[in-house]
């Protein structure tokens, strides 16, 4: 599974990455987490408000407020 966290490096983007990492660990799924910080790259993925979360190419979340850990797990599980 391929997970992408998109954000230029704001506090919320760092938190989003941590959420994704914790979710993957707790779910015990095999996933590669990629952090995308380049603004052009972020836009290219169709994210309009950061932080964004993309699982297997599908936008699962974008913008503030951040989803809860439970929600992130759900979003990832939906694609597993």
């Amino acid at each position: 599974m391929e997970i992408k966290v998109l954000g230029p490096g704001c506090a919320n983007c760092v938190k989003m990455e941590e959420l994704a990492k914790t979710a993957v660990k707790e779910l015990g799924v095999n996933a590669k987490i990629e952090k995308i910080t380049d603004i052009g790259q972020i836009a290219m993925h169709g994210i309009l408000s950061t932080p964004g979360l993309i699982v297997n190419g599908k936008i699962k979340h974008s913008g503030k407020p951040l989803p809860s850990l439970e929600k992130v797990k759900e979003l990832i599980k939906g694609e597993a």
Partner: protein
Amino acid sequence: MLKKFADYITYTLLQLAPTSHLGDALNFFIYDSLKIFLLLTTIVYVVAIIRAYFPPEKTKRILSHKREYIGNTMAALLGIVTPFCSCSAVPLFIGFVEAGVPLGVTFSFLISSPMVNEIALIMLWGLFGWKIALIYTGTGVVLAIVSGIVIGKLKMEKHVQDYVWQIKAGTGEIVETNFREKLMYARDYTAELLKRIWPYVIIGIALGGIVHGYIPTDFVVKYAGRENPFAVLVAVLIGIPLYSNAAGMIPVVQALVGKGMAMGTVLAFMMSVTAISFPEAVILKNVLKMRLIYTFFGIVAVGIIIVGYLFNVIL
């Protein structure tokens, strides 16, 4: 009822004289804090529910390939309800332009969205009444429409960073949510926002209380009153570098108004604080060349100054 509570604390519990500076300032502080936080919590929550129906992806789709005038108008109005944070200004800008939203229309959105926000509205409503809040919203929307049209007419597409035009963005499908999830979004949004702005509100109200209790009226009237023709200009120039902390600004401004600061000057100041700021310029540098940033700031600043003088004459 809030007034009674504030009176009870200051005059009965703390036994301060209503005529003393300290009593006056403290009473003002307690009353305003209670009122503002009550308003903030309820209205931000309601607005957040509305916002949940207008994610930026949807707004982008609505505005895509819209013509000028009608496009600018819709962009300025959608700017009110679409959640926007200047930290996302860059991907949003690219997404809009790439989806075929005309440059001028995109600017109408970028101007209205931070300026006509619910915090500014609540604070203005709570401290100055609904008429002033409505005037602020109305002029804000008009200013966003007109500035966007002017930028569109100037044909400044070549002053957008070249790489922006080469990006082929993904479709960016909308994450569908049901009503229950929208309510949860609204709750999280409200909590997050209050957590972020409460210190500014408290500091703002405290400063306002000090102004209210200690600063002499003639001083304010002399420098920020109707008679000083430079007040609007100076207020706008001070407002530009200040970053949109409308929440903290307004209580101070309200206290100044109580002492004779002119209303047009207040509106102009608020607009320049929220609409344009240096951090925003730095962020926009990623997608715009300097010439377009200057033009954008110049047009908006001139518009705001005109608004200020206009309302100083008619209000």
